[in-house]
């Protein structure tokens, strides 16, 4: 077989079990593809020795008839996950040289399931960004281009390296994390599938914290079946994360029947934004038609507090970040600034954090500090948490009325060019997450599925939002949509 790196997880798994390929062959194919793709700047720490060692072990297990679900499948890991002995920097200068002495629960579960780690993937610094332009490693680049125009496009963010790597077939799948849309927006920008599960499904232990009440890990894959396989391996209760749910993890793949007859799909009127490109409006309407043709009932719904989700997010997320990022003080790990004669510990903190944090991270830490400071805590932070309660209630009300899933666009536009937003004010960049951020605030599962190309030839995605803990049902609805759309476009190789 040639081009083994182009396989998805399910295809590769089946080929491995039939004995048609070995994990070493799959892994070597990916490692070659990675070495040819430095122009994408997706893999920022390559781990070929670890990969080949795990691949050999996987081949032994398969031969011995003891192959767990991800056995021998080569994947990439976002730099936000702590991986033992391997640099884990959250794409930040402040964690320069940090090699954890431990492994995150999610990456450990994937390893236990037999997955082969190829290396660490680029991202926005501390997952703060929507274009992968805040990374200390430099921009990750999308494999997609606007026709013959060679301008570099963003793969989205914050999981931009994961998106670029999966779309360019550098790995079979990758981990991502999603605090406001960081799995779903990049997945939509590069034409792949990405799911953020219900808050509490995946352990956050060992994942560098951004906003702890919103952060969730999830898979970024080539199709919905692969998302089901990988999500199952990532989920599960972990005593080391007190917010991790003590619930059984179903066999998500077995729930992919494609039968959605009688399901009620809500179309929220508040997601019809002023100035939304007609292409996205059309894609959304077509998606609803396809689900209807597959037997679902389409209903108009209202989520009245949608407009306030982004402003609430930009209070809550920076507030939590300012607290979480207080640990980067130049004492225990990572960077410490050179001190001048007479500098004390306060100067050490201030210089270290000024040198180690990039501009966007500094800005968010300071906004968070401000909204939590004496005199503003009630006006900003508590008010935002009240609005969050109302946003969650919007969803509870429509689910109580019998809606099974909600269909929305994934992003308000196709991918933009790297550097194109540099002059815009920060709020313009934040608007990228307008359709995804509500889902984090309400703790719900959401999935982005590629649904078409725009007139420039760039992918566009649709988002489905599900009931809490019903990822299996959500994946099945996404599977029905995927079958109806028949998205097969791939970027032409230029790198």
């Amino acid at each position, binding site marked *: 077989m040639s081009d083994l790196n182009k396989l998805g997880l399910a295809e590769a798994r089946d080929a491995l079990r039939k004995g048609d390929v070995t994990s070493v062959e799959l892994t070597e194919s990916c490692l070659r593809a990675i070495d040819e793709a430095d122009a994408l700047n997706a893999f920022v720490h390559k781990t070929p020795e670890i990969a080949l060692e795990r691949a050999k072990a996987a081949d032994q297990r398969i031969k011995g008839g003891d192959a767990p679900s991800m056995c021998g499948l080569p994947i990439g890991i976002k730099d936000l996950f702590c991986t033992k002995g391997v640099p884990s920097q959250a794409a930040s200068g402040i964690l320069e040289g940090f090699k954890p002495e431990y492994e995150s629960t999610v990456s450990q579960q994937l390893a236990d399931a037999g997955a082969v780690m190829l290396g660490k993937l680029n991202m926005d610094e501390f997952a703060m960004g929507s274009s992968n332009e805040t990374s200390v490693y430099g921009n990750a680049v999308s494999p997609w281009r606007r026709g013959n125009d060679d301008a570099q496009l963003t793969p989205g963010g914050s999981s931009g390296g994961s998106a670029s790597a999966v779309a360019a077939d550098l790995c079979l799948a990758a981990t991502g994390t999603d605090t406001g849309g960081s799995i779903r927006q990049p997945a939509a920008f590069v034409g792949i599938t990405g799911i953020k599960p219900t808050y509490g499904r995946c352990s956050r232990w060992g994942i560098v914290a951004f906003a702890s009440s919103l952060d969730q890990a999830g898979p970024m894959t080539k199709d919905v079946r692969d998302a089901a396989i990988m999500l199952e391996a990532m989920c599960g209760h972990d005593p080391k994360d007190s917010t991790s749910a003590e619930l059984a993890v179903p066999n998500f793949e077995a729930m992919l029947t494609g039968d959605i007859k009688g399901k009620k799909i809500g179309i929220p009127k508040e997601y019809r934004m002023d100035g939304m490109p007609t292409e996205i409006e059309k894609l959304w309407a077509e998606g609803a038609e396809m689900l209807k043709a597959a037997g679902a009932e389409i209903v108009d719904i209202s989520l009245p507090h949608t407009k306030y989700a982004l402003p609430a997010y930009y209070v809550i997320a920076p507030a939590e970040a300012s607290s979480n990022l207080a640990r980067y003080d130049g004492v225990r790990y990572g960077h410490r600034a050179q001190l001048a004669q007479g500098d004390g510990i306060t100067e050490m903190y201030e210089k270290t954090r000024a040198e180690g944090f990039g501009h966007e991270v500094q800005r968010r830490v300071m906004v968070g500090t401000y909204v939590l400071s004496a005199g503003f805590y009630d006006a900003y932070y508590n008010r935002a948490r009240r*609005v969050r*309660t109302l946003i969650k209630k919007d969803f509870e009300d429509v689910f109580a009325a019998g809606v099974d899933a909600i269909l929305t666009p994934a992003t308000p536009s196709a991918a933009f060019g790297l550097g194109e937003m540099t002059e815009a004010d920060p709020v313009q960049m934040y608007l990228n997450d307008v359709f995804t951020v509500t889902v984090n605030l309400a703790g719900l599962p959401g999935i982005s599925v590629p649904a078409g190309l725009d007139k420039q030839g760039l992918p566009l995605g649709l988002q489905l939002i599900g009931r*809490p803990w019903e990822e299996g049902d959500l994946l099945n609805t996404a599977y029905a949509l995927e079958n109806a759309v028949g998205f097969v476009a791939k970027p032409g190789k230029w790198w």
Partner: protein
Amino acid sequence: MSIDQSTAAKVAKLARIKVEDDALPALASEFNTILGFIEQLNEVDVEGVEPMVSVTPMRLKRRQDEVTDGNQQDKVLANAPDAREGFFAVPKVVE
């Protein structure tokens, strides 16, 4: 609510991030853009609404108060920029 340069300087100090004086006007202006965006929250009637504590209704679990981990000083110090004699070393804190 508008943030002036002295407020920006105070916030930077609280956040323990050194900001040079000539960078303060731009920083204050960015704060004002973001806070202007956040001000929209004032339109929402939140009377009688509880601030969200946990997005999934759950009680934090309790466990026995006993040692579950420890004896790994070398690992704890392995990534320190300056570790000496089994401790983290920092500039002089007390005069």
